[in-house]
Structures are given as C-alpha cells and as structure tokens.
C-alpha cells in the first residue's frame, strides 16, 4: 500500500483547500486596507460615513439617495444600518428626490461635499440593472444544467455530451 503517496483526488482536495484558504486570506487582508489617495483609492461611505470631519479638505466618494433638492441633500448609508445626510454643492445638473447619486469631491465641512463629478441614476435604472443581471445569471445557470452533469464516481462535473454541437 503506497500510503504516503497521494492519489489524484487527494491532490485535488488539497489544491482546492489551498485556494479557498488563499481567497479567505485575501478577503481578510483587504479588510485591513485604508484608502490611499496617492494610489487613487479614496474614502467612501464606509470610511467617511462614521466621521466625515476626519476627511476635511480631502477627496471622497459618497453615494446615497437624494432626499431634498434645494439644496441637494443626500442620505448616505454606512456600517450595518447607519445613515447621515450630506449636502452636495456645485452640481452640474439638476436632480430629483429619490434618485441615486454618487459624488466625488472635497469635503469642506462635516456635512458638505463640493462635487467635481457625479453619477445620477433614477430608481428604475437601478431596477433595470438588477433585472437584466438576474436574467444574465439565469441564462448561464440554465446552460450549465443543460450542458454539464455530475460524474458521481469522480465527484466532478463533466460535459453532458462531448461531441454535441
């Protein structure tokens, strides 16, 4: 019995676990990274939301829902369920209540963002994106079910029909 020799399936399992551990390590590591404007990485809702005053005079990127238009006040969400209202000034277009807005600019005080560039989307555009993305995912899923099957001996997927057109 070559007990110390690993067969193909144990190499496969070890490699699989190795990749999972690497991926989890990356997700944990990324959580420790802070924004670094020198690398074009700017604070967002998660960083600037809890305490905007820390980032006074700095570029940040904040997004949320327009709750009033004169002035433009945006409710941004951060953390698990926290919210804060930020006034967006210097917008180059008009917006309406309920629209989703993401603005990049400089925080001049704890509640004012001087905008340099914005993206504005209506609620229906967000829904449109979710709906067609859902159908995109469904299409791939149905093709996997149609074209691939599980080989129970090998515990692996294999094409349903190798010479299928």
């Amino acid at each position, binding site marked *: 019995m070559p007990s110390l020799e690993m067969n193909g399936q144990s190499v496969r399992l070890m490699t699989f676990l190795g990749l999972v551990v690497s991926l989890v390590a990356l997700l944990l590591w990324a959580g420790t990274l802070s924004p670094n404007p020198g690398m074009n990485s700017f604070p967002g809702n998660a960083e600037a939301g809890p305490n905007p005053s820390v980032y006074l005079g700095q570029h940040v990127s904040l997004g949320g829902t327009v709750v009033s238009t004169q002035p433009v006040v945006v409710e941004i969400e951060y953390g*698990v369920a926290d919210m804060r209202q930020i006034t967006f000034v210097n917008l180059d277009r008009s917006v309406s209540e309920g629209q989703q807005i993401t603005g990049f600019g400089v925080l001049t005080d704890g509640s004012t963002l001087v905008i340099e560039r914005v993206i504005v989307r209506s609620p229906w555009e967000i829904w449109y994106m979710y709906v067609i993305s859902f159908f995109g995912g469904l299409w791939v899923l149905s093709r996997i079910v149609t074209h691939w099957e599980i080989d129970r001996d090998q515990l692996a997927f294999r094409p349903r029909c*190798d010479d299928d057109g």
Partner: protein
Amino acid sequence: MTMADVLTHVLVGYILGTVFSFRSEWVRAPQVTLVMLGALSPDIVKIKLLLSAEMVELALGMPFSWRPLHTPTGSFLVVGLGALLVSAEHRNRVFVLLAVGAGSHHILDVLLINPSGYAYPLCWPLTDYRPPRGMLYLSSDRLPVLVAGTVAAIVWKVQKKIR
C-alpha cells in the same frame, strides 16, 4: 456599484466562446457556457448586496472586504476553484475558458464610468494603485447590452449556418 450589468458580460462571454468554436473543434456548447460563466464570475462580489462586509466583520470580529473577488487575482483563485470542480481530463481547458471569460469581464469594467475616474486595483495585492478608467459608459446604460446582444445574435446566426 460601477460594473457593467451581468447580462452584458454574459453576452460577451457567449460571443467569445462561439467565435472560438468556429476555430476549435473541441469548443462546443458546454465550453461556450464556461466562457460565459467566467465572464460572470467577478460579479460574485455582488454577494455584498445580500451580506455586507460590515455584517461579516461584526460576525467574525475582524476586518473583512469582498473587494478582492472583483480583482484579477481574486478571479484567478475563483477560476482555479472552478477548474477543480471538473474531472481531471477537462481541467486545463476549463481553466483557460473560465479565465478568458473573467479577463473579458475586467477589460469591460475598466472602461466603465465612475465618479472618481479611477478603476479598482488591477494588480492587487502587488500594488493598491488604481489606474484611470476608460469612462466610456455607465453600468445602467442600455447601449452596451444592445451592442453585445446584436453581436451575439450575429455570431449565433453564423454558427447555425456553418454547422
């Protein structure tokens, strides 16, 4: 937030896979499906819409971010995991097909508009530097999906003709 919609990515995967099938005998419907799956794979980062990083941090008690899933390095690991799910004789080809799809995803997403004008860190974890974006379109724009859909319909027709 600023990514092309999933359908556009999947259509581009379909186009690439189908065009490969014109040239390579071994690329058939199951293999085209893999390019489409690879093209979708970086968007598993959307899991954050259901389970935010903040919620995971609360549960784990340590810092956490989903962002690496939407970087080329994250894609490499995910594609490797995918290739390990198939039997050994298919593994190398499956890896290549998934990787081509994932690569197309990153190329398309770097062309997207976002407010800061900078993409995500493409070479992370080597460097956290974010290159400027192409600023060509928004993820909710209708043009990319129309263009991709039209080209996909054309290659589908061509494929019907030659087989």
